[in-house]
């Protein structure tokens, strides 16, 4: 009698197992993979980038190369080859992208401009003593100073680092062509 009951239980569990496997393999895992892929794509776009993914890189000192490089590896344009150099005496970081601007801008003419404004804002808001960032692309360079970014958003940039403020004051503004033009004025040096 006990064995018959156990046989029924085994059959029921086997059916439950097969159904659970089908749900997990056929629906949940593909859905998760799709969401992950979508999230990675969103991280390339300054307007949809996730602020939470970079908050952990808040640091007082720009001399921490691992913190700074990890920050840029979690910001838009991270899919390009990147290298870094620090000039602590000048409180300057050099970020080198191994790609030409025109190639990055093939899909959106303002892609590099938006990314540079966004990445600079994030870096100056998160790293307290960083004063200047020099961006080098193949064939062109850009220089951004803390003072420039403070002109766009006001002094003490760390007030921007909350979800709503970041969305309204930083991300949404990147849809404004005039704002981009103003920010980029004088940024390109070569």
């Amino acid at each position, binding site marked *: 009698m006990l064995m018959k009951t*156990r046989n029924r239980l*085994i059959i029921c*569990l*086997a059916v439950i*197992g097969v159904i659970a496997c089908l749900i*997990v393999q056929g629906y*949940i*895992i593909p859905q*998760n993979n799709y969401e992950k892929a979508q999230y990675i794509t969103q991280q390339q776009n300054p307007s949809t980038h996730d602020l939470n993914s970079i908050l952990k890189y808040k640091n007082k000192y720009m001399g921490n190369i691992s913190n700074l490089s990890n920050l840029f590896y979690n910001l838009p344009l991270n899919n390009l080859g990147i290298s870094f150099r620090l000039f602590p005496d000048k409180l300057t970081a050099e970020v080198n992208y191994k790609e030409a601007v025109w190639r990055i801008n093939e899909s959106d003419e303002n892609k590099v401009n938006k990314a540079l404004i966004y990445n600079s804002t994030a870096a100056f808001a998160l790293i307290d003593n960083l004063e200047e960032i020099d961006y080098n692309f193949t064939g062109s360079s850009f220089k951004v100073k803390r003072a420039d970014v403070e002109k766009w958003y006001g002094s003490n940039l760390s007030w921007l680092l909350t979800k709503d403020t970041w969305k309204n004051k930083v991300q949404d503004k990147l849809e404004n062509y005039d704002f981009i033009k103003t920010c980029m004025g004088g940024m390109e040096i070569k």
Partner: protein
Amino acid sequence: MDVLRNHVENMFRSYKENKQIRELKNEILSNLEAKAADLAANGMEYNDAVNKAKDSITSIDHLIDVNIRVYINKYKLEYLQIVLLYSIIAWIVTIPLKIIGAGILINLLFFILSFIIGIFYFQLCRKEKVEYFSIESFLNIQRAYKIRKIAWILWLLFIVSSILLTTAVQFGSNIWFSRPVNISGPYQFAVMVLRYMLPFISIIFPLIINAAPKLILRYEVAYVDENQE
């Protein structure tokens, strides 16, 4: 007489030496020697007499107190059923782990295990011959209890070491550098809890071993026959 001594030693090879076993060995050996001598005295060739004495006793399992006569194939059938049940439960429990990419291999192993045991169990169930399920054999209940105890001790040791290992891997640097533990969200918390919980699935192994003494007693010939009457 060395031939008879070797024969007796061979019959007792699976038993640990103790007072009862030693006495039994001596008694059987002296009986066999007496029998061989008696046969030789009645005109039989010495080697034939020794062989005849050897053939008169080929198993001593029924003479050991802790050996229980069981319907061995009924016992095997129910044991296989229990193993199959636990294996399927372990397979189902590990299915959700695939969502976070942990325990994929363990889940696959339990699936393969359940499948193979399922085939064996199904084949055994199809045997409807009464004679097949009437075959009797001896099982050592004391050994089954001992193995059960060892299995639980080993499992406890495994759990303690896996908890320590997981803690060392997860929080080793936090402990070493006295840094606070940072769990950034519910997903990370769930992953951490799962890392601790995953080794507990191995409880099915001591549970399977745990069933043996109970089944030996359930399929004891005397007990089954008494219940049938």
